């Protein structure tokens, strides 16, 4: 038997490394112990799979180090030893309802062993391309597949490849954008950590198609494990002859290296990324010229995102038409989403385009935590927008999502319930973009700052009549005037929240109320006299002694003193404290 511990960053954070050590300590010779990447069921981490040969016999979830003995007991023949930690049928659905292409090896193979990748049809697509296809044929296959950039913009991949291929130049570069910046998306990290060879193979096919001799992966500095596993994978691939000179004995040569980013969201913009690769401040260049004409070291360059590359080998092996058979008229194949926030089953979800938001959030994600009311889902991170409950049946495709004011983006899907203030949400994203603005162009540098200031005063209850209109004016001007994608999309969270939740803005500004009861400056706490039993607990725990009262008598909160920390509200056993 083989015990496989899921060891993605998430899993490790949840304790997977400790689980691994605990099992290792007691395993003896009863079974083989190994690791795999991220299966994407974050809500169940740490996950331990037990295989008999190639057959998965048990999937154990939320495993603790103390469960090690039970697991060994099971592999030694006690069939009921791990029943209490086995995945439920309901939770199994989370995976069964998905269609995995980009993530097909994630959580299945050991990402640190190239042999496991090869055993699962790895590098077969590369071999097919190098030995049987011309560059034009590869680009044609990708064109047939309808694959579009998964990083956010959704630009047809074949078009970029073709532009770079046709661009004049003696030396061309292929670049992978793994600077996953959306604070709430982690599919790229999962792919690199769990299936690095799939990325390498996809990149090599792209390099062959455009004629690049050198490939660079620009990875976020915050992803140390991804860098470690990719470094290892590149070394393995070089050793096996998949990388370097005369790959697989053909005339195609390509080298690959990793460049670690240093923390700047704007480097997700391709020209800023190139500046950063060149060791400069990551400030976007003027376009045109586009990277296909003048990119890295001013040579023709092509940049795609991790998930885009992760689909390539599958398309080559299964044919562009198979990929295109999934999805909608204008969006083909599958898309991975990072489902987080107030969701019951958070994790990575890969589904064919054309499903609805409801399918993802309720059918796969199991609905809202604590069965609260669904309010909105934020898609596309700081460049995207909030889609309200009434649009839950929106189809997942570039056009339909764009029509809502949000974007497909890189696939961040943050679910919000009625306790999330939408003005606060807009403020959160503007705070992010204002901090991450590179400072080059005026519209973004000062415009996002001013938008943030206006939002700050609204959530503080200092909003003024005309603020919504002022925000809108700024939004449209920044979209029009900003130099790069960061600035041009920064207003989206504000515009969508104004569009769908204007009443919340108005409540903050006109009535000085936060309907979600989230903005602390607009809240006040009070004791409901006939519910209060006079237990004195709140008075004792109040950090500023704002609550007074004698035992067994109703207490009173001094609103002048109260700092709105909410401690009393959370402590009271009799629900005698109300928040208004």
């Amino acid at each position: 038997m083989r015990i496989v511990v899921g060891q993605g960053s998430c899993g490790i954070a949840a304790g997977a490394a400790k689980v691994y050590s605990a099992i290792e300590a007691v395993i003896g010779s009863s079974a083989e112990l190994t690791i795999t990447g991220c299966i994407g069921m974050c809500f169940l981490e740490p996950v331990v799979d037990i295989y008999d040969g190639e057959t998965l016999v048990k999937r154990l979830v939320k495993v603790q180090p103390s469960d090690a003995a039970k697991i060994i007991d099971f592999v030694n023949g006690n069939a009921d030893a791990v029943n209490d930690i086995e995945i439920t049928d309901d939770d199994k659905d989370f995976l069964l309802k998905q269609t995995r292409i980009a993530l097909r090896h994630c959580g299945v193979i050991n990402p640190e062993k190239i042999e496991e990748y090869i055993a699962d049809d790895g590098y077969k697509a590369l071999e097919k391309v190098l030995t049987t296809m011309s560059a034009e044929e590869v680009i044609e296959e990708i064109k047939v597949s309808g694959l579009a950039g998964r990083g956010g913009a959704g630009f047809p991949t074949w078009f970029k490849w073709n532009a770079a291929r046709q661009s004049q130049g003696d030396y061309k570069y292929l670049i992978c954008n793994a600077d996953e910046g959306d604070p709430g998306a982690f599919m790229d990290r999962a792919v690199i950590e769990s299936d690095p060879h799939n990325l390498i193979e996809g990149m090599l096919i792209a390099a062959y198609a455009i004629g690049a001799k050198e490939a660079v992966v620009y990875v976020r500095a915050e992803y140390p494990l991804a860098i470690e596993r990719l470094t290892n994978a590149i070394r393995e691939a070089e050793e096996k002859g998949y990388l370097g000179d005369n790959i697989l004995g053909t005339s195609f040569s390509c080298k690959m290296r990793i460049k670690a980013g240093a923390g700047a969201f704007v480097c997700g913009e391709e020209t800023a990324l190139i500046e950063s690769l060149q060791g400069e401040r990551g400030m976007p260049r003027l376009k045109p010229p586009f990277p296909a004409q003048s990119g890295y070291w001013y040579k023709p360059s092509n940049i795609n995102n991790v998930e885009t590359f992760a689909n390539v080998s599958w398309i080559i092996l299964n044919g562009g038409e198979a990929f295109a058979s999934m999805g909608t008229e204008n969006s083909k194949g599958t898309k991975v989403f990072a489902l987080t926030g107030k969701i019951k089953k958070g994790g990575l979800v890969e589904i064919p385009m054309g499903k609805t938001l409801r399918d993802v959030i309720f059918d796969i994600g199991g609905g809202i935590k604590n069965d609260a009311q669904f309010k909105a889902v934020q898609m596309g991170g700081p460049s995207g927008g909030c889609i309200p409950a009434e649009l839950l049946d929106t189809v997942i495709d570039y056009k339909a999502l764009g029509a809502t004011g949000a974007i497909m983006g890189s696939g961040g899907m943050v679910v919000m319930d009625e306790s999330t203030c939408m003005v606060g949400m807009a403020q959160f994203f503007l705070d992010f973009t204002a901090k991450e603005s590179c400072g080059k162009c005026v519209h973004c540098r000062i415009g996002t700052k001013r938008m943030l200031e206006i939002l700050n005063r609204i959530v503080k209850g200092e909003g003024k009549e005309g603020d919504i209109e002022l925000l809108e004016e700024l939004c449209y001007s920044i979209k029009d005037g900003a130099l790069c994608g960061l600035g041009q999309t920064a207003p989206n969270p504000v515009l969508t929240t104004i569009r769908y939740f204007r009443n919340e803005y108005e409540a903050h500004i006109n009535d000085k109320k936060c309907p979600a009861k989230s903005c602390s400056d607009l809240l006040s706490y009070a004791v409901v006299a006939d519910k209060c039993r006079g237990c004195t607990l709140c008075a004792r725990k109040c950090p500023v002694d704002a609550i007074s009262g004698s035992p067994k008598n109703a207490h009173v909160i001094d609103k002048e003193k109260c700092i709105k920390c909410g401690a009393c509200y959370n402590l009271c056993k009799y629900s005698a404290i109300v928040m208004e």
Partner: protein
Amino acid sequence: MSCCNCNKSDLSLINDVLDKYACVDGSLITILQHAQDIYGYLPVDVLYHIADRTGSTPAKVMGVATFYSQFRLQPVGKYLIMLCQGTACHVNGSEKIEKAIKDELGISDGETTEDGLFTLKNVACLGCCSLSPVMMINDETYGSLTPEKTKEILRNLKAKED
């Protein structure tokens, strides 16, 4: 990391890195990353030294060192608390965790406690969204935080130092 008490950094520590990268175009960020690993932060004299060896101007090196959030020009505490400010953490109450840290240690984002033990740094998404709210202290990740749990973690670390 000083060579003596003269407040000058030991520049020899970074020579190997510079030997390897100084002549490779576009390596400034890589060099700075190594320098930060070596010195714990980026001392100004080290930046000047890097400029000198790479043929950049000090202005350019400073420009790069201050652009990226990974780089710091001041030493950090023994425990670097990286508090995730991702969307999921925000939705699940990271603001309250930040307040708890401030209450417990008296430091805000970018500040270090007077005893030099703790530095708080708000960071973009750590990518552990399902465990939100999350913080990382040195290499350890702490998930599903509550204000009370956060304070307890910090108190335990403090107790370890006493």
